[in-house]
């Protein structure tokens, strides 16, 4: 029992060491800049509507539903998540870790947590950008929802979606040689296809869960009008949150298993 506790304590210490060391390193990379640029993209079409006579929620909700959630969120998570292990392999620095007496799982967890914090921060900036740009536009309707009412629920949902995507892409990055290519294929082909299929098949995608969470919000009827596919079955709020957390957990366990087994000495 004492040995197990000691092992757990060591693993937690390693996780914290890796997390604190690599978070600051990740934040200072060019990758963060690219992620921030991607996060700024959804604000641009909203700003383009400034001065035009359109209801507030129309551009903001369209941009959030189609561009932010469907394109930019997985893209930002892909850039951050794929790098968790792949960056160390590409830089050939993974050797320094795996010839040390450290738990591979603790190392993966530390880097993953750092990537999750980084992605959560960038996603927050993206949603913040949506809010600011919406506030800057002049179009308003008297009986429509306020900017805050539209944007506020998007933040926790996007962050949760970002965490799920990051964990999936981290597992992919630990497994394949070209995680960005595989990740793009997953995010923009499989996810997009599954999320837009009618019936319960859509439940296999992260995106469908995120949309379901938006639909469950007080402004849900406005979001639902954006959905063009007929016969979409939305997932209840609690079930969607639970599924996303399970997705995170399964992807994390899978990533740990891969990292523990894989011979990274072949890749460097």
């Amino acid at each position, binding site marked *: 029992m004492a040995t197990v506790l000691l092992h757990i304590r*060591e693993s937690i210490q*390693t996780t914290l*060491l890796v997390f604190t*060391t690599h978070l600051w*390193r990740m934040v*200072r990379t060019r990758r963060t800049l690219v992620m921030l640029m991607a996060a700024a993209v959804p604000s641009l079409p909203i700003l383009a509507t400034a001065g035009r006579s359109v209801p507030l929620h129309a551009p903001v909700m369209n941009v959030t539903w189609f561009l932010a959630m469907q394109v930019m969120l997985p893209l930002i998570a892909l850039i951050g998540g794929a790098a968790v292990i792949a960056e160390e392999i590409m*830089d*050939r*620095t993974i*050797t*320094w*870790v*795996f*010839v*040390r*007496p*450290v*738990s*591979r799982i603790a190392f993966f967890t530390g880097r993953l947590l750092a990537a999750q914090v980084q992605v959560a921060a960038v996603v927050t900036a993206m949603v913040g950008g949506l809010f600011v740009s919406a506030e800057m536009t002049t179009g308003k309707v008297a009986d429509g929802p306020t900017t805050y009412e539209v944007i506020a629920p998007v933040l926790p949902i996007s962050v949760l979606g970002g965490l799920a995507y990051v964990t999936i892409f981290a597992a992919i990055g630990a497994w394949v040689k070209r995680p960005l290519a595989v990740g793009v294929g997953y995010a923009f082909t499989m996810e997009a296809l599954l999320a837009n299929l009618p019936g319960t098949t859509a439940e296999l995608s992260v995106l469908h869960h995120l949309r379901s969470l938006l639909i469950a919000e007080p402004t849900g009827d406005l979001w639902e009008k954006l959905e063009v596919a007929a016969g979409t079955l939305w997932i209840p709020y609690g079930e969607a949150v639970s599924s996303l957390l399970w997705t995170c957990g399964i992807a994390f366990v899978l990533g740990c298993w891969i990292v*523990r087994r894989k*011979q*990274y*000495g*072949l890749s*460097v």
Partner: protein
Amino acid sequence: MSGPIIIANGLARWYGQVLGLNRVDLEIRGGITGLIGPNGAGKSTLVKLVTGQIRPSTGKIAVLGQTPFANRRLLARIGYCPTDDALYEDMSARTFLEYSMRLQGLARTDARTTTTKVLETVELTDAADRPVRGYSKGMRQRVKLAQSIAHEPELLVADEPLAGLDPLARRLVGRILQETRARGAHVLLSSHVLHEVEPLTDRIVLLNHGRILGQGSVAEMRDLLVHHPRKVVVRAHRPRALACRLLQEEFVVSAALDPDGARLHVETVDLDLFLERLPTWVCDTSCGVLSLESPDASLEAVFDYMVT
């Protein structure tokens, strides 16, 4: 440990269709052991197997009595200096070494103390707080070596630690390896240049095409190599006269002139004796030597002899 520190039985490793190591049986005892072979001989594969970065395709390997792959208990007792020049470019040497020592399991204060000490050992204290990206090849090599010796491992595995270093840096690395040996640790030193390793090693293992060509003390390996004729190319003012003189010696196998008569190609079974006596022959025959080179000085050429 009085027994072998590394034991391999039928050890093989393939990379797809490419053979890295071919059914190697090996016993490496304590001290400094040189792992010698040309590029592609299988040295790095063996080093990766020893340091637990990869698993064998077939066969077994035991290092300090344990299976190495991802074995944390064993890795705590090993230091590894890779051939790769990859470092965390944004970190300073001090940060990198402290981080490495923390990963090794040292507490923060101990990691700091150890880092300061090892930076002095590798003579990097002055540059310790600069980012590694601005370091020269020699400085980077010293950082790599520092992280491998800082925790005073029982076994130090150094993959090409002398590659690309200037003479001063080589001397420093040589001194560090000798000091490591002196404190009772074992060293496995990989290199493709025999004469680099020779002054440092007690024993050498010759590898080529994934196979072990020979292993033993430096003297034993020398004896093994001596039986093969070595080539020497001499440019002299009177090459014919020199050739006539050389052919009188028993240890000179052949002496042939270039078609244009400019260079003399000599084969000798005792290169050391040949080089020792050459000045006398040059004086005897009054033929000034313009240049002297031995194309066999490279290990690849010696391996060619041994393979054929």
